[in-house]
């Protein structure tokens, strides 16, 4: 082989070594939570949902850093509690300065960064954030063990169970007063015409509050886009905007979806309620709060529809 081909050979060796090296990379997803470790004192979180759960379970002084979303009221249920805690922006450089003894990551964090943290000797636990309330109960208990707050976790789960049972009783009471067995249909509309369908926590929230979810019935799986005209044609009983009440800091095209005249005409007929994203972004106590809010809506709808029915009776009476 002539010397002219040597760059080709070097390139070949480089590519080959890259393949070999990458196959030696560390396995991730150590999903088994190790309970033998001592109670962590300096916890960092790289995920908005674990941020919030940490704030609920662990004394503040044991939390060394959270994502930048945790302290924002437009995304976090625990925004007030997070103020003042250092922000890591879910970046390695944001994590390192506080020298945490436990780093908690969600399944969507940058795996390269997690590898880096592990190589540097940090304990990184990747957790799978729950998507429904049953999973959330279980998750909170295991998470409590992981962060050394098992007692608090058990108390939190018990409180959730009590509140959910109470809400279920309320819904049953409302439904027993109802004249018909019609379960009201709710349409959820988020900026960009997005809507949560089957296998989203929103469907569970709605069903526990006594509503049917239009998107789920239309067969939308996960988050999907709902054409405005399909929403109009379905004639939902209530309209739920999953959005910040006002478009904070300037409008956006996504929000202009919610200002279409046809949609606003609909929300003048059907009652509408705004559910801020912090209530549905993660599953946990905030989910209970969301259900409580929609149970109120359910009650109001009951009143107004019965009122309307009564008026109709008056009109038809001689």
């Amino acid at each position, binding site marked *: 082989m002539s010397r002219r081909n040597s760059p080709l050979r070097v390139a070949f060796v480089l590519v080959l070594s890259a393949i070999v090296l990458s196959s030696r990379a560390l396995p991730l997803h150590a999903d088994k939570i190790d309970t033998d470790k001592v109670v962590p004192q300096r916890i960092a979180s790289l995920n908005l949902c674990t941020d919030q759960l940490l704030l609920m379970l662990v004394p503040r002084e044991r939390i060394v850093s959270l994502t930048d979303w945790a302290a924002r009221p437009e995304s976090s249920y625990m925004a007030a509690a997070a103020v003042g805690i250092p922000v890591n922006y879910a970046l390695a450089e944001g994590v390192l300065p506080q020298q945490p003894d436990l780093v908690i990551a969600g399944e969507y964090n940058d795996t390269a960064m997690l590898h880096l943290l592990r190589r540097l000797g940090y304990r990184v636990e990747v957790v799978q954030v729950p998507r429904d309330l049953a999973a959330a109960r279980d998750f909170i208990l295991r998470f409590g063990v992981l962060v050394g707050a098992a007692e608090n976790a058990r108390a939190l789960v018990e409180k959730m169970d009590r509140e959910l049972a109470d809400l279920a009783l309320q819904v049953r009471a409302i439904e027993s007063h109802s004249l018909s067995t019609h379960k009201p249909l709710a349409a959820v509309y988020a900026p960009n015409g997005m809507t949560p369908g089957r296998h989203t926590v929103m469907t569970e929230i709605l069903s526990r509050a006594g509503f049917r979810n239009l998107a789920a019935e239309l067969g939308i799986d996960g988050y999907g886009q709902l*054409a405005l*005209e399909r929403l109009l*044609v379905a004639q939902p009983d209530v309209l739920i905007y999953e959005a910040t009440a006002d478009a904070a800091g*300037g*409008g*956006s*095209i996504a929000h202009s979806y919610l200002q*279409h005249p046809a949609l606003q005409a609909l929300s003048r007929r059907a009652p509408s309620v705004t559910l801020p994203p912090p209530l549905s972004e993660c599953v946990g106590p905030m989910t209970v709060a969301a259900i409580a809010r929609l149970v109120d809506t359910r009650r109001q709808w009951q009143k107004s529809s019965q009122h309307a029915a009564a008026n109709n009776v008056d009109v038809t009476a001689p």
Partner: protein
Amino acid sequence: MKIKIHAISDLQLLPSLAALLCAVLIFALTQGPVALDWHAALTTPDSLHGVILWQVRLPRELLAIAVGATLGLAGAALQGLLRNPLAGPDLVGVTSCAALGAVLTLYSGLAAISWVSLPLGGLIGAGFAVAIIFLLSGQRAGVLTLILAGMAINAMVSSLIALALNFSKNPFAMSEIVYWLLGSVANRSYNDLSVTLPFMLAGWLLLLSSGRFLDALSLGEETAQSLGFDVNALRWRVVLGVALSVGAAVSVSGNIGFVGLVVPHLLRPWVGYEPRRLLAASALGGALLLLIADVVVISVPALREIKIGVITALIGGPFFLHLIYKNRNAFS
């Protein structure tokens, strides 16, 4: 390059295009995820199906027509002004600058202050881009200068749009870069149309009334001047017309590419390469192309609606490559 001319008179061409446009418009109104009850929709506009037809579908398609006409017309005018068949408003960076202007007003909250600020932002951006292109290309608009300048402007402005969206407090802003870079007329209402149409009409008037000047320019600037045209003033009239119409259009539709390049080029043989006749024909042709693209957007089932700029780029991209291939000797 072999030149084919199938010129037919304006009295045949324009009504044919208009009739085709009407036919496609009616077809577009029948398309949508909901099967429309036409009787109810046509007789009672306040009914559910009436609202879908008159409030959801019609304004969207009317906007597609207005935006398409603007892009076609602006393309024809720019190509006439720079005497260059590659001077589409998107290739030379006019549409992306308009998008930047709109983005800056929208996400800074200026758009909430007054309805004019959104189209105004768009047209300032567009005007800025046309002026730069114009100054760069100077007296002799070399193809290479033009395309390279456009490339630089587009790259720079795309990042500036991303930057502006990054700084927005709105959590949805960043995901909207897709909208601004690829364009969409989905879910637009009469509000968007009424806000921007006055600017577009003003721009159209300026461009359509520059036809004779563009004809004269085909013999060079000196000759145009000697034919009694105030070349400097009329050039700025075209620049203003493009800025007004494209700026307003892009501020509610995002950056829809290739319409302004493809349409004038396709129609040129039909008008005998006359820049003046190309204007009205390109306006109708642009409207037609964007309407057809929107019909495709509506009728292709997807989890999330396809952006209209994707369709126009998929039509226009290969076409542009073909154009380069055919003219490759002229560029080297």
